[in-house]
């Protein structure tokens, strides 16, 4: 990794512990992401990878340890426009119809805050929609989109603030192949433009060539922190529990026939 002009890492998590009820979910996790790096957080279901990423942005309270964003302790961090967050896609949309443009525009609020959006803000929103290839559908309702298209909307929403770091929770979950390609291309462009990325993945898949480093979690502890193991997917991970949410629509790859 080439050293950047600013010495402090973009994301720095030290000795993080967190509990869900009485169960420890993170048990002393160290996680560092430097400027320009693409880091994948891998692990089986329940390994704590989603909790780790959500505590980085302050959505899960830590019981111990520290988190710093751009060198500022999370508690005092206010420059949220520098962070683009893509949550795990939920099936439940809002109770009222909204267009792609309306949803993506809310990503720009980290810059406009309580003020009115100007021309630059509207252009940034248009650009973000274009980056995920949905310009011709910008006025369509998000309820009419497929899972993959919906995920592209969420990524456009994160890109609308022109962030320096993208934090994504399972961006490829339930995404069709065509959308996976578009997502990989979008991400490649962002990385080429100097963006830093931390993403939770079920398996490396289409994004594998982009990943600089992989951190593997197991039972809330870091098992591996280094180059992504080649062709390592979910199946090679320790503790993989063989839960396939899409088992019904996918042929089961047993390794015997394929």
């Amino acid at each position, binding site marked *: 990794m080439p050293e950047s002009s600013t010495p402090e890492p973009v994301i720095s998590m030290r000795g993080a512990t967190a509990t869900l009820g009485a169960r420890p979910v993170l048990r002393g996790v160290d996680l560092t992401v430097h400027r320009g790096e693409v880091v994948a957080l891998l692990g089986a279901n329940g390994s704590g990878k989603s909790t780790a990423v959500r505590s980085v942005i302050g*959505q899960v309270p830590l019981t111990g340890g520290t988190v710093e964003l751009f060198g500022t302790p999370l508690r005092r961090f206010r420059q949220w426009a520098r962070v683009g967050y893509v949550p795990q896609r939920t099936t439940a949309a*809002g109770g*009222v119809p909204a*267009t792609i443009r*309306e949803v993506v525009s*809310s990503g720009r609020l980290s810059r406009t*805050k309580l003020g009115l959006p100007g021309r630059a803000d509207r252009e940034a929103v248009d650009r973000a929609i274009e980056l995920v290839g949905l310009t011709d559908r910008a006025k369509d*309702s998000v309820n*009419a989109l497929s899972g993959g298209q919906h995920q592209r909307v969420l990524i456009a929403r994160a890109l609308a603030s022109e962030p320096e770091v993208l934090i994504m929770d399972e961006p490829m979950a339930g995404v069709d192949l065509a959308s996976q390609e578009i997502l990989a291309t979008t991400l490649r462009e962002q990385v080429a433009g100097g963006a830093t990325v931390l993403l939770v993945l079920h398996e490396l898949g289409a994004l594998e060539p982009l990943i600089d480093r992989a951190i593997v979690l197991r039972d809330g502890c870091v098992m591996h922190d280094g180059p992504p193991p080649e062709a390592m997917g979910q199946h090679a991970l320790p503790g993989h529990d063989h839960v396939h949410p899409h088992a019904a629509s996918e042929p089961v790859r047993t390794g015997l026939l394929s």
Partner: protein
Amino acid sequence: MLEFLNPPFMQRALIAAVLVGITAPAIGIYLVQRRQALMGDGIGHVAMTGVGLGFLLSTNPVWMATLVAVAGSVVMELIRWYGRTRGDIALAMLFYGGMAGGVMLINLSDTGSNANLTSFLFGSLSTVSEEDVTAIVVLAAFVVLVTVGLRRQLFAVSQDEEFARVTGLPVRVLNLLVAVTAAVTVTVAMRVVGLLLVSALMVVPVAAAQQISKSFKVTFVLAVVIGTAVTLAGTVTSYYQDVPPGATIVLLAIGAFVVLTALATPLARRRARGSMREAERCTLEVPAARRAKDDVQV
């Protein structure tokens, strides 16, 4: 011809009706968006205690109801933050306690009577006083200012609360503002539609509008138009026919919902067919395939 405009009580009732038609769907759309459609109903119950206090202390019931409803909505929002596990029980206590307290207080007061109680529960045109109109205008201005002025922020918070927090918006303050604005709207609408039917006017016009709209903006505008149309029509109807205004307005709103749903079904089908033609049909030509218009000799 517009004879209903002559009596002063009708002028006051119509002003109140228009303001209710605008404000109730304007805040209701955010409640529907965050799937809290019945919140207005709960606040309506709590406001009852305010009305009772107003009678007991011989002050204006609208202002007293506003105070109590706002306090109740803040408590509801606090329950939502902290009391995850037994939240619904706590809300039930609040709602029915508010209702029972109101009925009790009205009975204890000298000026309150059962007729008064009914007028607050179901709305009444003849009882809208000049003082009420002043209060309603001031409160409605606040509701419009919040729901229109902060529409981008409230949309984001209601659409995806976690994402809104990560954009650095003051999500707790905005949530509290939605709750307080909903409480204020309840008291704006109380005189015309009544506390028990307030919530319907927050929800039904929004539900009707979203049958035929694709965007939040259009849903908002359409819901306000429908809201205003049904409150005006209902108020005028109850002037000529001796029917309660609140019930008339709500039934008209449900009628609008049914009509728009009936209109929207073929529209949605056509849209679905259009997008299917683009995306899902096979575009490969099968060379030897016979087409429908081919002249086939048997």
